[in-house]
């Protein structure tokens, strides 16, 4: 397992703990997006970006209204919790470790 994957694993566990003990600053929608993205990234190489369509189709995000979903994505991007590829402004996302 690569170092980045191990680091990402640890970060995921700590985010869960943060949420569980009530220290998380995220809204419910943002938590669902982060969890969905974490699950999707766990199934592939953690350095790969995931399309917003796939995140929206995930069972944790499928019920979120589109405006709320994209507003939460924008919020998470501006706080630095998500990253975009260098040559794009939207569409592909990755959890920022």
């Amino acid at each position: 397992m690569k170092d980045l994957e191990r680091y990402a694993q640890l970060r995921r566990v700590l985010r869960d703990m943060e949420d569980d003990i009530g220290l998380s600053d995220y809204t419910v929608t943002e938590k669902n997006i982060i969890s969905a993205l974490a699950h999707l990234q766990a199934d592939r190489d953690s350095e790969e970006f995931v399309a917003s369509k796939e995140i929206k189709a995930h069972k944790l995000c499928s019920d979120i209204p589109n405006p709320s979903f994209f507003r939460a994505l924008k919020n998470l991007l501006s706080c630095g919790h998500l990253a975009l590829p260098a040559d794009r402004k939207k569409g592909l996302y990755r959890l920022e470790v």
Partner: protein
Amino acid sequence: MLEFFRRFSFNKEIFAMVFIAYCACYFLVEFLVYPVQMAVGLPQTNYASVLFLPHGIRVLSIWLYKGRAVIPLFCAHLFIYVLFWLGEVSLTSLAVVFVGTFCAPVAFILVGWIGFDVSVRNTEIVHWRSILAVGFIASVINSLGNSLFLSPYIEPALHLATVATYLVGDTLGVFVLLLILLLGFRLTREYRG
């Protein structure tokens, strides 16, 4: 056979990280926790700590690095034991070092045998609580082993209190270490963003 050696193979980055982390946590306990325990007047302070952060390093390093964490954990345990405890390598000290080194791997193996998956791929569990639970199982193994080998050195009246302190101290050590890491990452995030 090759797979066995590959699993426990030496990696200098992992060795450095685990060895340094274990020793740093032990120094924290030795110079912060133990003086507070002595000031409060806990009689089992000579044998056990109520907040043993190095146990958190044992559990987390095995969870992250599996077999590759065993060699650095063993070396760190031996280094600390010689530095702070008996000052010499005896059979008792080696036995205690082995118990401390292998309590976490054995706990993960036992948990794996009953079919419980603590990896992040298991989406049905709350991971940090599962790691804490495995830390508690490792603590039971550690306290049983330490009680067995150190019983000639512990006052009989303090045996039960010492075992209880091992259990509490080790498990609290895992929780507090996770909390320290969590707060550290939050600070980094706030500083960056």
